[in-house]
């Protein structure tokens, strides 16, 4: 059956969907699977919750250039010790 996917695939598509990288076909297949699989439905909801939490927290990382500066600074200091 073309429309049937297993739980493994469903998890994969669900991850892709979190980053808006699932194709229409993948999204449709995921939807169909979630209708028949309670377990994946729960996991999928949890996954979406995680995405929302990350969005709400507005996480940041230190810019790469600044990391490099900090690294050389620290390296120099270690040399002095």
């Amino acid at each position, binding site marked *: 059956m073309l429309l049937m996917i297993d739980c493994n695939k469903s998890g994969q598509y669900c991850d892709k969907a*979190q980053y808006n990288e699932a194709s229409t076909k993948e999204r449709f297949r995921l939807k169909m699977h979630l209708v028949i699989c309670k377990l994946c439905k729960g996991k999928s909801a949890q996954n979406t*919750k995680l995405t929302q*939490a990350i969005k709400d*927290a507005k*996480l940041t990382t230190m810019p790469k250039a600044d*990391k490099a500066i*900090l690294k050389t600074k620290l390296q120099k200091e270690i040399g002095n*010790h």
Partner: protein
Amino acid sequence: MTNHLIDATKWVDRYSDYLYNYTIVRVNDHEVAQDLISETFLAGLKSAKNFKGEASERTWLISILKRKIIDHYRKTNSNKGKAEVRMQYSGEDSDGDWLEERVKDPFDKTAEDTIENSELGDAIYDCIGLLPEKQAAIFKMKTIDNFDTEAICNEFSITPSNLWVIIHRARTSLAQCLEKNWL
């Protein structure tokens, strides 16, 4: 002792994102955050011999950073600090755009939301800290820095399906960790 010095070379790779996120939500200024973290690392290096290994390295660094943040606010609130004229621009381009800076906050954004979100950020970063190093690096690149799948694959020389497996593992651990520590 030598152990700590060896570890210090990895501080930036291991903790800079965590410390940066922690600082930026509290001081709201990139330059200040950068300075505070730099000071924290240097102070940490100086007092490395006092590190008893009772807490994890990261907890120890955070405790130094907390002091630095408090000192920063103390300085800006001291009489001398108050006497200084400070002008804050949101970016170089907006120099003098005073009107834009005077726009009132959105009415649906409360102080509680901000506090809650910064704590949520800390909790998520705590959980990311528990992931294996490579997994954490890839997850952060993908989720926080929003890099293309292709760019990340090139950087780490992995295939897209490898990437999705790593992302899947990271997300599963994170969801479980957050469920335990946050919700």
